């Protein structure tokens, strides 16, 4: 099966000389749920943004659905981007607009001319957005301003917006880093079920190791911009973890005892 996404020796050097990615290569197939883990500054966000060219790369190739992303410009780049949904740590909604309007933003990439500029969405799109909102348990909030929602609800709107794009691939940059444990679980469960049902491949940046172990079909470990681990979660042993984070597993858990660890897994 042709992979959805292929990284070929991708490198990124920022103008200030920081090498955020070095010689990164991997493939993503349909139905995969991949967690990218690594310490802060290891290049997780850069890797994710290289996929839809929010950050231009400085070496190698990113091939999305058979097209090289770095060669695309203007209309073609928009066509590539609309097939990749993205979810952000800070939700990145337009808070002065309604929840429904934010969800419908997912259709902008498909709209041309004045209809897109003035937000004249089709009735079909609106119906679909409402159905998605009720699937997320947000049907009562569709006309509220996005700023009125709680963090977990905002993130659900973010997911709905991404799903509206009918993406082949979903990118999530620390989707639960600003949320409390119970909302985090809701969001991770939603991501899992939404992508599974629709056959969307999903790449999630996480800094919670336990969450990554619980949900992923595959884990990619980044350290200083290089892939140091790529495989099934079961294969991620303590020595690997130490190589990725540069510290032992115990030091990664707040509290550190066995009991606490079980707790964090349960409510994460």
């Amino acid at each position: 099966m042709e992979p959805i996404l292929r990284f070929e020796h991708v490198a990124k050097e920022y103008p200030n000389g920081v090498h955020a990615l070095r010689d990164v290569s991997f493939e993503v197939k349909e139905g995969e749920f991949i967690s990218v883990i690594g310490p802060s500054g290891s290049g997780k966000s850069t890797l994710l943004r290289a996929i839809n060219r929010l950050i231009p790369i400085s070496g190698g190739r990113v091939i999305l659905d058979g097209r090289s992303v770095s060669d695309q410009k203007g209309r073609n780049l928009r066509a590539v981007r609309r097939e990749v949904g993205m979810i952000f740590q800070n939700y990145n909604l337009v808070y002065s607009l309604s929840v429904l309007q934010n969800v419908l933003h997912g259709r902008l990439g498909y709209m041309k001319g004045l209809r897109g500029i003035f937000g004249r969405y089709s009735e079909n799109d609106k119906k679909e957005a409402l159905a998605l909102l009720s699937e997320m348990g947000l049907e009562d909030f569709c006309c509220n301003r996005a700023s009125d929602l709680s963090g977990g609800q905002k993130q659900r709107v973010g997911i709905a917006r991404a799903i509206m794009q009918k993406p082949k691939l979903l990118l999530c940059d620390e989707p639960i880093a600003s949320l409390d444990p119970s909302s985090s679980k809701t969001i991770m469960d939603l991501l899992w079920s939404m992508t599974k049902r629709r056959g969307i491949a999903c790449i999630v940046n996480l800094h919670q190791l336990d969450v990554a172990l619980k949900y992923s079909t595959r884990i990619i470990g980044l350290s200083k911009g290089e892939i140091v681990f790529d495989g099934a979660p079961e294969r991620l042993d303590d020595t690997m973890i130490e190589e990725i984070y540069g510290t032992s597993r115990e030091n990664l858990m707040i509290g550190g005892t066995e009991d606490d660890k079980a707790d964090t897994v349960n409510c994460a």
Partner: protein
Amino acid sequence: MTKRIPLIARDLKRLYTGFLIAAVLLFIVCSVLTNFNVMTLIANGDAFWEFITEDFLPPALPKADRIPGVLSSVLVTLALAMSATTVAAVFAFFVALFGSERVSPFPRLAKLVRGFATFLRNIPALVWAFILFSSLGIGTGVGFVALFITSFAFMVRAFVETMEDVSQDCVESLQAVGASFPQRVTQAILPSCLSGFLSWFLYCVEVNIRASTIVGMVGGGGVGLTLFSYIKSFQYDIALSIILLVAVMVIVVDRVTGKLRKEILK
């Protein structure tokens, strides 16, 4: 000798002392250069006082048939400030879109746009008025253009900063969705920055009400010109009532815009 315990760091103390000495020296140097003498103020105090009490006070009304003219000139000044600011805000919005590296589709030009705005802004409206009426002649047209240029430049800077503060995140998410630049403007930047833009706009109206009076005096029309004509013909008592009228106008506008701004930012 016992050492005193210092209350502030020694170099800070030196800095303050330095400033004080520099300020005194500057005052002396400037006084000598401009032949300013505090004593003349005191010596001429009587004449000054006489001028105020004899010529200015009490305020007098202009001739009855001139009153409608004066009032309409106040309206002209208000209209001048409002229209110049409004037109400038619309232009400033479009230009500001290209003045922020993070929003503009041509980030390399952003510095140029901001530099241009800063340059225009640092020339006061009064100077623009002088430059302009040698080419456009005396009239409200000059006042309009002079106010337009300065408030346009000011609002470009203010709008760019508002956009950088507010719409960073949502612009990124709409980019990821595949939205085009005009779509990002209407769907993300405009809704999230509108209240900020309006607040700056109202502030600019406030500033321009004052500025349009002054620009009017040098030939921009409106109540400024009326006031100046009374001063030139030594009818200071009538001038005083016009000054009071202007003050009332400014205070009323200040209060109204201040209230509106508070409402908007809520």
